[in-house]
């Protein structure tokens, strides 16, 4: 009985303290809100927002609800995160592998990149790209096009818009390519198990992926035309490009800074993963006659990926959270649109900040859960 009491008392005490603290906060909040005449409730979400957003992936203007504004902000955040993650991964893997190169110059250059971009605050990097680097770009009317159709100006990057005819046929051809690749891979695997012969699956997959859509182009009536951005004058000294897709400089600066910064951490994860494989593994694999490519594919990468993927996923999460710095340069992400403008207009601090934090929490928890599942699934069995 005594031990049970000993176990229960500290827990009860802690619980009591926590409850008291929360109670204190809630009580004060009630009083403060009463005093200022603010109500608590989520009804405001369906009210008209009456503010515009500079950049949005979906239809939106001032007549839409706050809930829709939230969605716009969320989509913008996810857009930056998505593009940033892709660029950061590619860059990080390249730099990570370069860090292991026996070539002194390559290894030092990669090390320089990592040390340089890692030790400067992300906010400073974002400011630099936005206020200093991108400001140095020319005005629309003075821009020389890259490859004739890309215009990198101070007002953003304007690219041609794709206009598809019969897009669905192209879509089906890609779907067919994917399915046939899956079938071929299955067949090749069975063939190897039964007869030992190996098919060049990779080349065949690439071939299919390229040829089937081309066939769709030629005989399926799919056609692609470009709407090239065209310079248009909207005021006496102000020009803009119309007709193409415009990527605002805020988006470019944010994505660039995020990718360059996060890539340094990913590079270190990749390096640690590959270095973590003992030399003996490579030697043993070589000694049974595997080619260097086979050694990499069958022995090194499976083990290295187990070490690389968990911290890299953590970096993806960090990138997504860091995208909230968009507020500093007025890119309309979730924080700026919802916890910034909407909050200022409605004054519903508690509700809005809670929703924002909950959104990020959900993203984090989803990725954590996925990480745990993945780790359990591929864990190397031990005694």
């Amino acid at each position: 009985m005594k031990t049970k009491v000993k176990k229960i008392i500290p827990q009860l005490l802690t619980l009591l303290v926590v409850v008291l603290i929360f109670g204190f906060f809630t009580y004060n909040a009630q009083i403060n809100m009463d005093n200022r005449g603010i109500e608590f409730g989520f009804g405001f979400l369906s009210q008209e927002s009456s503010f515009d957003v500079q950049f949005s992936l979906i239809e939106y203007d001032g007549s839409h609800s706050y809930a829709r504004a939230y969605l716009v902000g969320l989509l913008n955040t996810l857009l930056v995160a998505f593009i940033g993650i892709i660029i950061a991964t590619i860059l990080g893997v390249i730099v990570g592998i370069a860090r292991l190169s026996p070539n002194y110059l390559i290894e030092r250059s990669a090390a320089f990149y990592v040390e340089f971009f890692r030790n400067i605050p992300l906010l400073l990097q974002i400011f630099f790209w936005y206020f200093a680097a991108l400001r140095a770009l020319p005005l629309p009317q003075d821009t020389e096009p890259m490859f004739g159709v890309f215009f990198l100006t101070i007002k953003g990057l304007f690219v041609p818009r794709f206009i598809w005819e019969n897009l669905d046929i192209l879509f089906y051809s890609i779907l067919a390519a994917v399915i046939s690749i899956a079938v071929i891979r299955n067949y090749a695997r069975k063939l190897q198990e039964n007869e030992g012969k190996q098919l060049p699956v990779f080349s065949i997959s690439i071939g299919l992926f390229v040829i089937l859509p081309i066939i769709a182009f030629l005989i399926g009536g799919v056609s692609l035309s470009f709407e090239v951005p065209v310079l248009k004058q909207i005021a006496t000294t102000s020009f803009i490009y119309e007709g193409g897709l415009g990527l605002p400089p805020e988006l470019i600066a944010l994505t660039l800074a995020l990718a360059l910064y996060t890539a340094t951490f990913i590079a270190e994860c990749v390096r640690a993963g590959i270095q973590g494989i003992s030399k003996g593994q490579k030697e043993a694999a070589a000694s049974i006659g595997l080619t260097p490519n086979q050694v990499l594919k069958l022995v090194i990468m499976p083990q290295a990926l187990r070490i690389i993927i968990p911290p890299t996923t953590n970096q993806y999460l960090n990138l997504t959270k860091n995208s909230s710095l968009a507020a500093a340069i007025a890119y309309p992400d979730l924080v700026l649109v919802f916890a910034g403008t909407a909050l200022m207009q409605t004054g519903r601090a508690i509700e809005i900040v809670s929703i924002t934090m909950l959104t990020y929490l959900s993203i984090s928890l989803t990725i954590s859960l996925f990480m745990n599942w993945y780790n359990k699934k591929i864990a190397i069995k031990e005694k």
Partner: protein
Amino acid sequence: MNKLNFLKPNKENLSTYLYTGSFLFLIAVIDVFLGAFFEVNITFFLPGFIGFILPLILGIAGLRLIRIEYSGIPKLDLLNKNINTNNFNAILTLLIIFIIIKSIPPILSWFFIDANIAGDSKEACTGSGACWTYIKIWLRRFIYGMYPNELQWRINISFVLLIALAFVGYFATEKLKKFLTLYYVVIYPVIAFILIYYLISGGAFGLEWVETGAWGGLSLTFIVSFFCLIFCFPLGMFLALGRRSGFPTIRYISVGFIEFWRGVPLITVLFMSSVMFPMFLPEDFFMDKLVRVIIAISLFEAAYVAEVIRGGLQALPRGQYDAAKSLGMGYWKMHIFVILPQALKLVIPGIANTFLALVKDTPLIFVVGLLEIVGMLNLAKTNPKWLGFAMEGYVFAAIIFWIICYAMSRYSYNLELKYKTDR
């Protein structure tokens, strides 16, 4: 006369290959060098595109020729194995060398040659390079923020005292050594707090009061970093212990706390501190902006420190716990004397990383209106008398942060090495 098969250099005609190859390589480098530094184009007689590509081709050919296996000259073999193992490697090496050569003149000219530092107004910046005059004039603001000029000696004294007191550890005699931990964890922070409260903030003993809103610049960066470091470390330690506790309630509360703060961006936390905190506190309880920010950042970083320390606690072999228990040590004794000292040594790099991240996160406090150095930069660049010098400001701040962060990571690396040999 042997037929020289140029495609396959071999040992017999070593000197020929070596000299030809080196000659070609040198020509390539000189071409790029002259072009970058002196704007002299020695291949002006060739059409533009070929002249551009020529150094690359010459360089590749040169490196190909000196790629002799087992030449017997140790330095050449080393060079070949390192940067010249195959054509791809050779191309990359050349490109890196060329890029370095091509980028030195513009950097040198912007930083030094065409830059200005004399004078005290915008007109003094006549060159096309950096305007360091801008930095020179604004330096006081960048370091002290809006703190009144005549009172800045107070900040200087506080920092000098703090730094001096930090080195007390070196001079402790044997008798006093056991009080060191107590000193660093309790006494030092208390002294720091008193200095900040009375000397920098003032309002008593005849010193004029300076509100925290006027504090800024690099001094604010240090103050925020310092206090957040002091608070988040013990809090993180308790959270880490709580997460591994045998009591379910404590465990769940710790986990919830940690996962919450790790799941949200710092900027929302700061928003919360400026917008929501006032709501949660009694009407007339005013908490200074700076205090709120320090509390918010400390709670935030404590969650990350907790995870790092937890890693160390887990990595410790179970035998340590068993041995301590079998000697009759209770939970707290075991952790204070056996577990934590070892676990903390294990995770020095992780903690250093978190501290570094903390320092790099301080610029975010601009969202609550506090202007540390990056905030001051943004303020300065909108001043009508000094428009257009954003680049200089950011480069200046980047250099300062880079030095601080690099120094910290080097120090932690050395600490790690020192403790590794101890084991």
